[in-house]
C-alpha cells in the first residue's frame, strides 16, 4: 500500500474550527486535506471527505467548472487555480461568490447542500489539483 498521508477528517475539522489561515499555511507545506491510498496496480481509493467533496462538486460546481474541475469557457480550471489560492481565499470565494471576467460565481454560504461541505470540497479539489486524483468517480476506502 502506498498511502498519501494527510490530516484525518476529524483533525481537519477541529483545526479548521480554530483558524483556517494558519492551518492552510501549515498544510501547504506538509499535510494534505485528503487521504488517498493506491495499490501497486495504481488503483486508488479516497477518504470520506474527498468522496463527499467529489459528490458536492458534481452536484453544484461542475455546471461551470466542468466535470473533474477541468474548467470551461465560463469558469477556470480548478485543477490549475487551486495551486494559486490558499485555503482562506478558497473559503471566502465559495462563501461569498466571485465575479470573474466572463461568469459570476454564486455565493454558496446559504445553500445547506454546499455550505456543510466546504472542507470536503477543498479536499477533493486539492487532490485533483495536486495531480493525485484521476478524473472520474473516486472509489471510497473501505
Amino acid at each position, binding site marked *: 500500500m502506498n498511502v498519501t498521508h494527510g490530516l484525518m477528517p476529524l483533525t481537519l475539522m477541529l483545526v479548521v474550527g480554530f483558524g483556517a489561515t494558519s492551518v492552510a499555511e501549515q498544510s501547504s507545506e506538509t499535510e494534505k486535506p485528503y487521504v488517498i491510498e493506491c495499490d501497486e496496480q495504481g488503483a486508488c481509493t479516497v477518504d470520506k471527505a474527498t468522496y463527499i467533496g*467529489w*459528490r458536492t462538486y*458534481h*452536484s*453544484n460546481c*461542475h*455546471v*461551470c467548472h*466542468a*466535470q*473533474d474541475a*477541468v474548467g*470551461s*469557457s*465560463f469558469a477556470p480550471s480548478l485543477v490549475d487555480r487551486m495551486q494559486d489560492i490558499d485555503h482562506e481565499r478558497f473559503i471566502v470565494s465559495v462563501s461569498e461568490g466571485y465575479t470573474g471576467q*466572463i*461568469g*459570476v*460565481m*454564486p455565493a454558496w454560504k*446559504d*445553500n*445547506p*447542500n454546499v455550505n456543510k461541505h466546504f472542507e470536503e470540497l477543498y479536499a477533493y479539489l486539492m487532490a485533483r489539483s495536486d495531480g493525485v486524483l*484521476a*478524473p*472520474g*468517480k473516486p472509489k471510497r476506502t473501505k
Partner: protein
Amino acid sequence: MYKPLQSLAVLAACAVLPGAVIANDEVKSLTADANNWAIWGGDYAGTRYSELDQINAGNVKDLQVAWTFSTGVLRGHEGGPLVMGDTMYIHTPFPNKVFAINLADQTVKWSYEPKQNPDTIPVMCCDTVNRGLAFADGKVFLQQADTTLVALNADTGELVWSVKNGDPAKGETNTNAPVVINDKIVTGISGGEFGVRGFVVAYNIKDGSQAWKAYSTGPDDEMLIDPEKTTHLGQPVGGDSSLKTWEGDQWKIGGGTTWGWFTYDPETNLVYYGSGNPGTWNPVVRPGDNRWSMTLWARDADTGMAKWVYQMTPHDEWDYDGVNENILVDQEINGEMRKLLVHFDRNGFGYTLDRVTGELLVAEKYDPATNWASHIDMETGRPQVVAEYSTHQNGADVNSEGICPAALGSKDQQPAAYSPKTGLFYVPTNHVCMDYEPFEVEYVAGQPYVGATLSMYPAGKVTGDGSSNMGNFIAWDATKGEIVWSLPERFSVWSGALATAGDVVFYGTLEGHLKAVDSKTGKELYSFKTPSGIIGNVNTYTHDGKQYVAVLSGIGGWAGIGMAAGLEGDTEGLGAVGAYRKLSDYTQLGGVLTVFALPDGA
C-alpha cells in the same frame, strides 16, 4: 407584462397578410415549400424529411463545402438554421445571438444580441445550449436562456415584443425552440435539476400576451386536465390525478419541465410534447408515481386542454426525461392505416402510439443494451423494472451499478428523421450505461436540486460484448419495433438527423464529421470533418435553384461536457478493447456553420 413596440416595419410586415390569414396557414405554406427550412423539424410533424433530391445517393460523394460562417460563440451549438427565401436565420448558445444572413452574398443582414444576466449561466444544468428559432407573421422568435421570449422583426432584427416566461432566480431557464401554432407561440421551461415546476405556455404572436398556461404537476385546473375527458391509455385520468401521486406539497418542486421539441397535427389541432424528470434525482424521498412527470402530452393548441397523457416512466429513478420529440406519421399497422406518434424515449424504449387517442401500440427497446426494465406491459403501459437496477430499492447512498441506458438516455434531445420513401426512422442514439447513487438534498429556491451522482461509460462494459462504441446511428421500423440496421459510432450521436427524397440520410458526430449514408442500407457515402463536434441538426434548403445542406458545429451539450473529460477513469473495464480515446483528442470547442453543396455543373 409585455411592451409592444410600434414599428413601421412590423406594420408593413403585417399588412402583407390579409386579415383572415392566420400564422398557422403561413407556417403550413412555408414548410410545404421544400426550398425553405421553416421550422425546426422541417414540418409540423417533425419528420425532418425534405423532398429535395438534387443531392442523392448517387452524387453525394461529390459534396463540397460551399461556405462557412463563425458565430463567435464557443459553446454547444444545438438546433439548426432556418431558411426562408433568400435569408438564413441562425442562433447561438448563451448569449443567444441571432444572425440573419443574406444567402445571395452571405453577408449579415442584421444581428441581435440580448443583454442577459450572467447569473443565468450557473442555473443551466447541461451547457448553455439553445435549440433554435421559430418564424411566422414577419417575426423571428427566440426563446432566450434567461427565459425572455422575444419576437424580432424578420427584416430588420428590431425587437417587436418580449415577455418574461420564468425567473432564473428560481432556477427557471430556457433552451427549447418555440413553435408557432395558429396565432400563438408555444414554449416550455427548463430547470428540472433546480426543483422547477414544469409548464407549457402559449403567447399570442401579435403582442406576446399569454393565451394559456398548463403545468405538468398539481391541481387539475392548473394542469388544464379535465378529470373526465383527459385520458391515460383510453381511461379518464380522474380527479387529482397528479396530487394523489406525490407526498404533501412535493409537486410544487416536482419538475416535469418541458425543454424538448414540440410537434403539431393541424387535422386534430393537437400539440405534442413530453415532460421531464421529477425533482429530485433521489427517488427515495418522493414516493408515488410523480404524475405527470416523464409523460407524453397531447393538448388542444387553442385552449391548452389535455386530450390524453401517457406516463412512460412512473416514479423515475434514473433521470429518463420524457422530453424527446414526437414524430407524427401515418403508417400501416396490422393491415390498417393508423395516425401514429413515434417517440424514442431516454429510457431506451421506442414508443408508437395512436396520436388521436393515445393508445399504446408498440413499445420496444431501440438499444438492446437497455436493462433497467425487462419490457413494457402493454395493458398498463408500465415498465417492468428490474430490481437490481432500481436505485430506489437499492436505496440512498448506495451505488447502483451497470444501469443501461445512462441518465442521458438511449437518445437525448437530438431529433430523429423519418423517410416516407422507406417508412423508416433514422435515430441518433447513445450507447452508454451508468452507475447511479442517490443521496439526500435540501431544496433551496434557485439552487441545484439534484441529489444523485453518476458515472457513465460505454455500454460494452455492461453487455460484455467487447464493444467500446458509445453511440449508434440506427434505422428503426416503428410499426414493428425493430432495428433494421445500426451503425456503431465511437461517441454518442448527439446531432439531429435529416432524411431526403434523394435516398440519403445525414447526421453529425461528436468528433465533428458530417456523414451521409444510404437510406436503405446505411452504407456510408460521404464524410467531412467540420471544425468542431456536431450536436446541431442537419437541415437542407435551396437557393437560386441549388440544394444546400447546412449544420452548426460546436461541441458541448450534456454529451460534450460529459464525454470531454470525465470518462477516462471509467474505461479500465474495457480491458483489451482499450481503443477508447477521449473526445478532446478529436475535437475542440467551436461555433461554425458549414454549408455543403455539389460542385457547379455536377
